[in-house]
């Protein structure tokens, strides 16, 4: 069963690359495949890189504004 942890949105605004992705990865670690993690990111480099890193590691990443939803793969 998938769990929506959207109420624990990780606010990573102001956290620079690659530390934002490090924090997102650590938050993903205990989750089960199919679980979702929501991140708030700075526009620009962060919003470009973090979803791409997530996809590179086999997760799904949906971007809506500065909000990114990662579904663990």
């Amino acid at each position, binding site marked *: 069963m998938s769990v929506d942890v959207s109420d624990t949105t990780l606010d990573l605004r102001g956290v620079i690359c690659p530390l934002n992705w*490090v924090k997102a*990865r*650590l938050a993903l670690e205990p989750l089960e495949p199919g679980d979702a993690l929501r991140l708030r990111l700075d526009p620009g480099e962060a919003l470009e890189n973090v979803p791409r890193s997530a996809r590179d*590691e086999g997760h799904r990443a949906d971007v809506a504004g500065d909000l990114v939803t990662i579904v663990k793969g």
Partner: protein
Amino acid sequence: MTLSEAELERYSRQLVLPEWSGGAQERLRDASAIVVGAGALGSPAATYLVAAGVGRVGVVDSDAVELSNLHRQPLHFTPDIGGGKAESAAAKLSLLNTEATVEPYPVRLEEMNAAAIVAGADVVVDCSDSFSTRYLVNDACCGERVPLVEAGVLAFSGLVMSIRPGESACYRCAFPTPPPEGSVPSCREAGVLGAMAGIVGSIQALEALKLLTGVGEPLLDRILQLEGASMDQLIVTTRRRDNCPACAQVPATAAVGA
């Protein structure tokens, strides 16, 4: 205990590795390593273990720093000449990573203290420079069931193998008898380039990190041979001997979960 903000930043470039994880980093922090020898191999090996976040690193060496050491032992600096190598190494390593506990062991590893030195460690990295010490370290690690990274370097040639006692070939399985006394020149006679020792010691650190975290595939039952002059590399497979006096009776060690 989770990783602190400072740890996240310090280790961020390895924490972004797809193969790595917070769990791997925490395993390193909880781990204890012994580096036997603070010389040409021990300098890079201990440096990368401490830098990567191994929580406790003991450095065993009874020698004093000499001028002729400095070209290949970059943990020691010119003002350290005459002082103890274990203390010189520990001082630099403690500054490199303030999260780590670095303990100097200013003693010579011998038959009577080998087991006590390696007991309780999660990995031993053998950076000693003599065959007799290498067999002592191997036998003590087999007896105490401590995973071990063995290596040697001479001139432009290097050799590395990792050992999980009871599971993979030990040094004595691969090399049952030491070479006859005097048949292999020592580094004092044959010479060695610091950069070559640096490569081999760095490989030892990488192997130890793999053994500690479960990430990657250590050189178990495999011996890596490097020729620095040509950059030829060769992996020779080896296996346990049923009659090995060091490891035949040793039950398998618990593997580290990824």
